[in-house]
């Protein structure tokens, strides 16, 4: 008799499954939410799925993911199968040693695999650069490209490399279970080794090959970390797109995509398991059960079908080669511009319009923070033309001589940019930048949880609100606000002032003033009414307000931080001419209006800024709330109170980090 689990065991199993599946279940439910919130249910809708299929970035990355996964699966299945056969025919000691080596990449942290592959590719590229340079200098018949970049090819190589172990792991046991004499028998009956492989070994190990391929495929679809490090700037897989989407605003589109991925992976797994269970239950094969299958098998076995099979194989090969060469030809021949921006930071119809108008293809990528963008650029693997960093990062890039001077003659729309946003501290002579958006940081509070109108940073530290305040989760903003409150410059390099600000935060922190340090979690906490006060970006406040009308926003009387994200062109950008065209297109009034409407960050275009309320009324047939407008685009008198970040000297940056760590988790 089987032992039944006790009550404790059953509860344990229940809790384990609850923790495993509850989040996924919630995600699926909220993918059908009508509103934008991930915390408040606002009715059933397929809205986000519809949006998903109109999201060009998602569709493109799905295509990339499928292409890479399918090709990587096909290649790694073939390579892995042959490798298994090789391992199988080795001596036991060698085989076991090599199997251990084979298993390491699966156990190894993806980040290590990803980083090491990235390093390897970059090292290879630099070696190749000198080699190609030499080849091109000694002869002129073949011209080798001297500048290789991370992209589809490296992504594919990486996927093949990490898929192979899974194939080997699935095929090897089938081989070992196979009667060793089968190969001898086939050779005895007139087969060469190769014929024996195709006629006997292959059918025997086919179930292992199929499950190996299925697992490799799901691994490929699933992978984020390794892809992230090897895809470079012109390629983006679905998981990378999703990650980028969570940067600025978490929209339920992410939930919709995730739901689809979950369902697809689930289906593949179920198919695989059902197939294996069936094979087992049926004792592998029962010809008598399937007269039709039998007939097919008979036909396939007959020599008549041989030409047929060859034909099918030929068609497959031709189709594959055509697709691949078309893809490469397509991507090679068309003029392109590589853009790296933030997730949810553009009205994507603009991309399509630009492509239609100019015939230039836009490879639109996203990074998740200024720091990531910086490290991507530094690693040398990316070949972006246009990037959209924030002010302080721009000064750092200028300092390190990574930006190209912009040819403003090619960008007539630059004249439309308001003078307030020109010659700012990060680019005093305005040689490198065209502003993209600007915005402010302020206090977001829940009017039902606070009994006064909040006007000062002081409420953040007011014991009255102990445990109800959310501290912004990065050191620059958290200490900057404290400095501002204390009446110092947000860009001070006076260590005493900084320590004073630290002590203010630390003291409040220690007595439990803050509920937690948050970045994107601020959406859920404020929308759900779990916290009374937070500090965050004005544009994001408007998203929160859509889901919770009780929220209010204020820029404190002490002042605050204001920021500009600007378009820059990299010094070694391969497509500068196209980059000018893109920047000019984005700087136009129409583009600015639409971006402002889409992302709710203010436009630097004078005309767009003025016209927006009018334009809004035309679009939505209702007037734009003046207060909302003032939140998106802070009026000049408010802006005067605000200070822009400049890049801090290195020792101050280190001090910030040190103090931030001291603050505790």
């Amino acid at each position, binding site marked *: 008799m089987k032992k039944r689990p006790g009550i404790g065991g059953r509860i344990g199993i229940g809790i384990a499954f609850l923790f495993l599946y509850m989040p996924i279940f919630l995600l699926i439910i909220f993918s059908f939410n009508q509103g934008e919130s991930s915390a408040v249910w606002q009715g059933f809708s397929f809205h986000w799925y519809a949006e998903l299929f109109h999201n060009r970035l998602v569709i493109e990355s799905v295509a990339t993911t499928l292409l890479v996964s399918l090709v990587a699966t096909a290649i790694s299945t073939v390579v892995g199968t042959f490798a298994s056969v090789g391992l199988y025919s080795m001596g036991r000691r060698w085989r076991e040693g090599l199997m251990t080596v084979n298993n390491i990449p699966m156990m190894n942290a993806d980040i290590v695999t990803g980083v090491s592959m990235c390093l390897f590719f970059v090292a290879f590229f630099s070696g190749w650069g000198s080699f190609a340079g030499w080849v091109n200098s000694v002869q002129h018949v073949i011209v080798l490209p001297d500048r290789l970049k991370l992209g589809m090819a490296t992504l594919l190589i990486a996927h093949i490399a990490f898929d192979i172990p899974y194939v080997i792991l699935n095929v090897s046991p089938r081989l*070992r279970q196979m009667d060793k*004499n*089968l190969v*001898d028998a086939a050779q*005895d009956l*007139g*087969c060469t080794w190769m014929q024996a492989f195709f006629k006997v070994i292959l059918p025997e190990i086919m179930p292992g090959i199929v499950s190996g391929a299925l697992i490799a495929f799901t691994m490929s679809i699933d992978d984020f970390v390794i892809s992230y490090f090897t895809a470079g700037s012109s390629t983006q897989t679905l998981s990378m797109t999703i990650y980028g989407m969570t940067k600025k605003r978490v929209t339920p589109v992410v939930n919709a995509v995730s739901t689809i991925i979950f369902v697809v992976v689930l289906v593949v797994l179920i198919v695989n398991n059902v197939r294996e269970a069936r094979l087992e239950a049926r004792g592998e094969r029962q010809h*008598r059960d399937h007269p039709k299958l039998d007939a097919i098998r008979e036909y396939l076995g007959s020599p008549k079908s041989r030409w047929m099979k060859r034909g099918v194989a030929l068609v497959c090969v031709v189709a594959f080669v055509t697709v691949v060469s078309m893809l490469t030809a397509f991507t090679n021949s068309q003029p392109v511009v590589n853009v790296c921006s933030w997730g949810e930071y553009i009205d994507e119809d603009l991309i399509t319009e630009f492509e239609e108008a100019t015939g230039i293809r836009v490879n639109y990528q996203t990074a998740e923070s200024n720091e990531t963008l910086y490290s991507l650029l530094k690693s040398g693997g990316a070949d972006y033309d246009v990037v959209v960093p924030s002010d302080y990062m721009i000064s750092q890039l200028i300092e390190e001589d990574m930006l190209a001077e912009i040819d403003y003659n090619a960008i007539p729309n630059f004249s439309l940019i308001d003078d307030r946003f020109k010659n700012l501290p990060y680019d005093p002579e305005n040689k490198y930048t065209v502003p993209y958006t600007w915005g402010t940081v302020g206090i977001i509070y829940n009017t039902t949880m606070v009994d006064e109108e909040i006007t000062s940073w002081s409420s953040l530290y007011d014991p009255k609100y102990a445990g109800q305040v959310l501290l912004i989760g990065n050191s620059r903003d958290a200490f900057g606000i404290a400095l501002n409150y204390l009446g110092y410059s947000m860009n001070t390099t006076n260590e005493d002032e900084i320590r004073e600000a630290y002590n203010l935060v630390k003291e409040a922190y220690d007595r439990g003033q803050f509920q937690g340090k948050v970045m994107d979690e601020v959406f859920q906490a404020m929308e759900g009414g779990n916290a009374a006060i937070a500090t965050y970006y004005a544009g994001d406040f408007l998203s929160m307000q859509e889901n919770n009308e009780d929220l209010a926003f204020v820029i404190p009387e002490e002042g605050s931080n204001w920021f500009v994200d600007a378009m820059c062109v990299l010094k070694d950008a391969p497509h500068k001419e196209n980059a000018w065209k893109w920047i000019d297109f984005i700087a136009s009034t129409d583009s600015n209006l639409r971006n402002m409407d889409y992302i709710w960050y203010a436009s630097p275009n004078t005309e767009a800024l003025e016209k927006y309320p009018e334009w809004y009324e035309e679009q939505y047939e209702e007037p734009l709330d003046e207060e909302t407008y003032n939140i998106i685009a802070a009026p000049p008198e408010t802006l005067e109170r605000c200070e822009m970040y400049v890049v801090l000297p290195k020792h101050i940056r280190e001090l910030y980090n040190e103090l931030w760590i001291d603050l505790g988790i």
Partner: protein
Amino acid sequence: MPKELIQLRDCVMQYGDDVILDHINLYINDKEFLTLLGPSGCGKTTTLRIIGGFLSPTSGDVLFDGTRINDVPPYKRMVNTVFQRYALFPHLNVFENVAFGLRMGETVIGEGNARYKKKIPESEIQKRVLEMLEVVNLKGFEKRSITALSGGQQQRVAIARALVNRPKVLLLDEPLGALDMRLRKDMQIELKRIQQEMEITFIYVTHDQEEALAMSDTVVVMDGGKIQQIGTPEDIYNEPKNAFVADFIGESNIIDGIMRADGVVEIFNRKFQCLDKGFGKDEPVDVVIRPEDIDIVAEDQGQLKGTVTSVTFKGVHYDTIVDFYGFKWLIQTTDFCPEGSRIGIKIDPDGFHVMKKSKYSGMFGDYSSYSEEYDEINDPTLLDQAEEEGTDDEE
């Protein structure tokens, strides 16, 4: 004069320091049923695999019809094999299993010994497969799945699959090892019939001496990578060359003796008349006395006297163990002697077989430890599993 078909000339097989075959010389005649007999690890399967082309000898030559074939791969040899556990192709049905070899084409030897494959027309394949299935009594089983067949039926498919190619030689590697006793006896007769009908050479590997004696024209007894004796079943049984052969083939009491003169052998300090000649005077020898050649007589009439220590009823006869001066003999007799009784024995001169001393002397022929389990140790199905070569690790 029968035609010589296969010759192994001074074949050595060696893995590092491990000598598997130690200078084997062997002639195999056309249409002969030859058995390689020996315990596991004796080198019989290796010899078979060398003939089949799956192994190449470390040194020495393999000749087929007078041509050296050391380097001819298995798929070009006119030899087919029935494998130990049949090695049928599970993904093909009975018909396709049998047709497998024919679909690969026929090996033809052309000018200058060049071997090439000739295609066989589909109609001929159909005809030959169906014919062969009839020979092995599997008519009507064409569409069956291999996994749906019994052990005996699978065995027949394996034989049909090999024979349908009309090989000059059929190699059989312990083909009956996995069958039960009853089926094994039937298949022995069946195999012998097929061999005579098809008129081809069979090289048969087994460790079952009964099987070897029953079916073979020639038996090759092997041990330790060496051929111990080659001969007809009668020769091997009646005139074993050494203690190993005597012990391996049937039951034997093997006693230390001294050859006092031609026709006179001394055991237990008593002289006996025998038929053996040609040994040196006073040469120490091994004396074989088969258990069925001993007559039990009253104690006072016996040439030797002893005490019965155990009696086992075997149906046709009793296995009686008798202690003679500390040495235990096996006697097979229809007379019942109770345990503990004193008896005498008589042996006719033709009951003695005298052998030269060898490295096997003193290792066999004493029944002190005889018990029922002895038979189980000899059970071919158990030994069969031990026969598998070193590296396999089936889960």
